[in-house]
């Protein structure tokens, strides 16, 4: 402490500020938000290189085209950068709201502060479930065990000590009196001095190589494969178009520029931006409902999720646990049960506020209301054996005038298994004598939806320290019963999940009768109940069957939660898991969507993809809708690309072979592509039809393939029709032909979004989003007046005759109606 310039009083706020200035914030640069990275990403796009080649080639022969192409590169980069920067900034700001906290002594008083504000010399405390926020030297600890697998790969917990260790040139693993940033407290408590923060920590020095990557989601994989397929197809087409155009006698440079422009028209260059904008939009909407998305892509999984595994407390129940009753095996209300429960208690009692384990808090609140807490003032707690999930109980060693007492409190079956005798009306009796009556009463309480804990004790000899080995030969004193009523809006949320095709499964460490009662009260039909003890006897095939059939998994261990998630995933489900406990982290990480709550322990929040600031299932149901909206709008972009855009470029390539001139100049194609991109930018804000939100969706490449095959030719057909009108009705020269086709293809490829975006009647039974309508119609208006402007003249357009506009309107209306009729046929026949 002396070396670090600190004391038992911790640092002063002023000193901490000064040290933060010198050493920097206690954070790692793994997730740092960087505008440079976003900018560089814009140049990694294959489109950029295609356009660059086109601009360089054009520069030698057609300087005007070269300038136009460079302007379009600049515009594309600015457009992509602006949208992705805005989207990522939103996500980063949201992520900042879920920060890890640390309890530090500042100015002599304990205070909960953001862990990034810790400085060397800070005196901090750690508890079960905490992620150690910095490297620290322990000054005090109790049964402290830490999982250091993040540093060493060793998953078995390491015991820590505050004693001095004599080792020459020690490795971090040998420093048993140190704790390292990123490791997890799995047992006990500790207090220590911060010795290193941020990049100076052991974790900081290797953090880049430890940055955790999660496997691609089904949707990500599908979209990536689709993009790659289009790029490969484009490359083949470009080479083919160039070769054929050159062979039929078109100028080589024109042929090259034309084929490159067609390539630009085919590449789905807006895909990353559409996905990013859609996700950030969804994240922002979810944040309004106090849901923080830590991993953007998990929103897609949330929309596709068809099974949600959740605990009971706080999600289905109010989480506001109240003490109902306390009773001895004889049935009487012995006040010692409550007094002992107060002494063996982990609640943190502050001025006017009691926090900690909800059942311990409930005991304190009850005692405070009845004045019982005063009865324990003559007792001194000399030692504690903390709670853990294996024992499912805790103990306290208490000294009073009559001697030393070990009090144990916890799950009834755990405590009863360590009891040899029980207090009863007939005095002290062997536990077997009252066991049947007690079990029957416990079952009755559980069947009514009440949770019960047991309290036992024994006299012990005074000694410096106690351990779990002392929790034997206990005398059962009695039980405390708690109420945890169903949540007001839980039924509504469960109904909504059912309507959305999401199957809810309850994974609880609690009694199956309590869980079944809650389900009954909430109208959740229970098909089968599987106990943890049954699960251990099952083969992997039986587990895979059980997870399909069961609604409740009771009395299960954290490891079994993981087995259930794995089995569901093997059965091809998209699984969400909601957990907030110390041992929920593996299941949270294994699930497709890990959900935690802000009040959960650090390690669960860290493993989660999505953090709920309030433990509320209803907001989660709304989040699923957001996920389905993202999926829907990204799919729309894909369908647009595969139908009208693809069809246009395909017919342009085909026509270039028999026309004596190019059907459109390369810079005209590029400009049309830019306008098309601008119009599509608002797709993420579009409205999704109700039926699309009804069921989970899966990426279906067969659907996209059939959609392309069916709708692609519509666009080509109308392009060829325009060629016919321009050539044979208007006898158009190249400039007029190119202008006519530019306007027609732009109208059709942009306006068709209103038809493709829904299975319903466009505008009548399915209204598009406001911004999509405004921007699309504005883009069409701009494309229409373009031939009459200076810019149009620069791009090589000429004014079109009035008769053309009349035919164009008729033709486009027929086209849109035909696509709509085709849509009816397609969905009827293909049954998607």
């Amino acid at each position, binding site marked *: 402490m002396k070396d670090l310039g600190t004391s038992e009083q911790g640092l002063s706020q002023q000193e901490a500020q000064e040290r933060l200035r010198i050493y920097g914030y206690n954070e790692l640069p793994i997730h740092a938000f960087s505008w440079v990275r976003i900018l560089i990403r814009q140049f990694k796009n294959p489109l950029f290189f295609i356009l660059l080649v086109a601009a360089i080639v054009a520069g030698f022969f057609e300087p005007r085209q070269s300038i136009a192409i460079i302007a379009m590169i600049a515009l594309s980069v600015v457009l992509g950068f602006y949208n992705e920067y805005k989207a990522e900034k939103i996500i980063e700001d949201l992520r900042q709201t879920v920060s890890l906290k640390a309890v530090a002594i500042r100015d002599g008083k304990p205070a909960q502060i953001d862990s990034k504000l810790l400085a060397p010399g800070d005196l901090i405390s750690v508890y079960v479930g905490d992620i150690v926020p910095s490297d620290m030297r322990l000054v005090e600890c109790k049964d402290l065990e830490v999982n250091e697998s993040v540093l060493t790969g060793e998953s078995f917990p390491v015991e820590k000590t505050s004693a001095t260790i004599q080792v020459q040139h020690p490795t971090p693993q040998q420093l048993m009196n140190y704790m390292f940033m990123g490791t997890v407290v799995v047992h006990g408590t500790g207090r220590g001095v911060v010795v290193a923060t941020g990049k100076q920590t052991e974790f900081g020095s290797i953090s880049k190589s430890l940055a955790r990557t999660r496997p691609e989601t089904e949707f990500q994989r599908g979209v990536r494969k689709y993009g790659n397929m289009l790029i490969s197809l484009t490359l083949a087409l470009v080479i083919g178009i160039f070769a054929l155009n050159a062979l039929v006698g078109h100028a080589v440079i024109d042929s090259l520029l034309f084929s490159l422009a067609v390539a630009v028209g085919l590449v789905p260059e807006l895909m990353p931006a559409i996905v990013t904008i859609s996700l950030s939009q969804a994240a922002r909407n979810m944040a309004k409902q106090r849901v923080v998305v830590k991993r953007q892509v998990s929103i897609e999984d949330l929309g596709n999720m068809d099974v949600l595994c959740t605990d009971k407390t706080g999600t289905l129940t109010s989480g506001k646990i109240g003490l109902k009753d306390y009773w001895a095996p004889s049935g009487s209300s012995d006040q010692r049960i409550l007094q002992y429960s107060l002494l063996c208690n982990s609640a943190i009692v502050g001025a006017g506020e009691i926090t900690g384990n909800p059942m311990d808090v409930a005991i304190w609140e009850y005692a405070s209301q009845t004045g019982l807490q005063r009865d324990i003032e003559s007792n001194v707690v000399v030692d504690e054996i903390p709670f853990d999930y294996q024992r499912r109980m805790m103990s306290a060693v208490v000294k009073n005038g009559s001697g030393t007492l070990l009090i144990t409190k916890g799950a009834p079956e755990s405590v009863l298994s360590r009891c040899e005798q029980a207090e009863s009306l007939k005095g002290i009796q062997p536990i077997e004598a009252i066991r049947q009556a007690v079990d029957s009463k416990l079952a009755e309480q559980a069947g009514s939806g009440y949770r019960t804990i047991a309290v036992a004790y024994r006299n012990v000899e005074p000694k410096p320290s106690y351990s779990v080995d002392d929790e034997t030969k206990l005398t059962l004193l009695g039980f405390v019963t708690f109420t945890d009523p169903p949540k007001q809006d839980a039924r509504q949320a469960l109904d909504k999940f059912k309507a959305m095709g999401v199957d809810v499964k309850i994974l609880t460490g609690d009694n199956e009768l309590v869980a079944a009662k809650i389900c009954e009260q909430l109208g959740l039909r229970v098909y089968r109940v599987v106990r943890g003890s049954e699960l251990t006897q099952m083969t992997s095939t039986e587990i895979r069957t059980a997870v399909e059939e069961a609604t409740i998994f009771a009395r299960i261990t954290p490891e079994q939660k993981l087995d259930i998630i794995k089995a569901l995933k093997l059965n091809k489900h998209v699984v969400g898991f909601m957990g907030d406990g110390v041992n929920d982290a593996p299941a949270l990480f294994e699930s497709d969507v890990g959900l935690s709550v802000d009040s959960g322990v650090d390690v669960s929040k860290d493993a989660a993809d999505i953090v709920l600031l309030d433990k509320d299932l209803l907001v989660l149901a709304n989040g699923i809708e957001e996920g389905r909206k993202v999926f829907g709008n990204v799919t729309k972009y894909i369908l647009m690309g595969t139908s009208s855009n693809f069809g246009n470029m395909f017919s342009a390539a085909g026509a270039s072979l028999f026309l004596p001139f190019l059907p459109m100049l390369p810079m005209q194609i590029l400009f049309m592509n830019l306008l098309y991109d601008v119009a599509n930018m608002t797709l993420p804000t579009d409205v999704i039809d109700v039926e699309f939100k009804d069921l989970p969706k899966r990426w279906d490449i067969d659907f996209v393939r059939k959609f392309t095959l069916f709708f692609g030719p519509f666009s080509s*057909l109308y392009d060829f029709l325009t*060629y016919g009108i321009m050539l*044979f009705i208007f006898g158009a020269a190249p400039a007029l032909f190119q202008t006519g086709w530019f306007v027609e293809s732009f109208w059709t490829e942009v306006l068709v979004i209103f038809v493709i975006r829904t299975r319903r009647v466009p505008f009548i039974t399915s209204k598009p989003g406001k911004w999509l309508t405004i921007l699309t119609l504005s883009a069409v208006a701009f494309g229409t007046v373009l031939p009459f402007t200076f810019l149009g003249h620069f791009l090589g357009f000429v004014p079109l005759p009035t008769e053309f506009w009349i035919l164009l309107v008729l033709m486009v*209306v*027929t086209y849109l109606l035909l696509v709509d*009729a085709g849509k009816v046929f397609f969905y009827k026949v293909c049954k998607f």
Partner: protein
Amino acid sequence: MQYSYLLFVWAISISWSAVFLIAVSIFLYVRRKHRSPVKASPSHVRLNDFVFVILLAGLLGLYIVSIERTSSLIFAAGNIIVEAILVLYTVKNRSAAST
């Protein structure tokens, strides 16, 4: 016509698009029959399902004739008639769920 020598190639190109679309429609229809053999046997083809395809073929004929005659009047009138038929078709064939 300035580009009359291109008319044949043009007619082939536009017909190819329409024929391809019709072929795809038939392919999808046949696949659908195989998928649900209980509800409809492969031999039982409902003409109503193919109204859309018949309309498409009709449209193609209209377009080729109007352009071959360089008549914007036939083109306009034909389009209006087809649009009316298409509206009727989509209204009649839309299931309750998709309206």
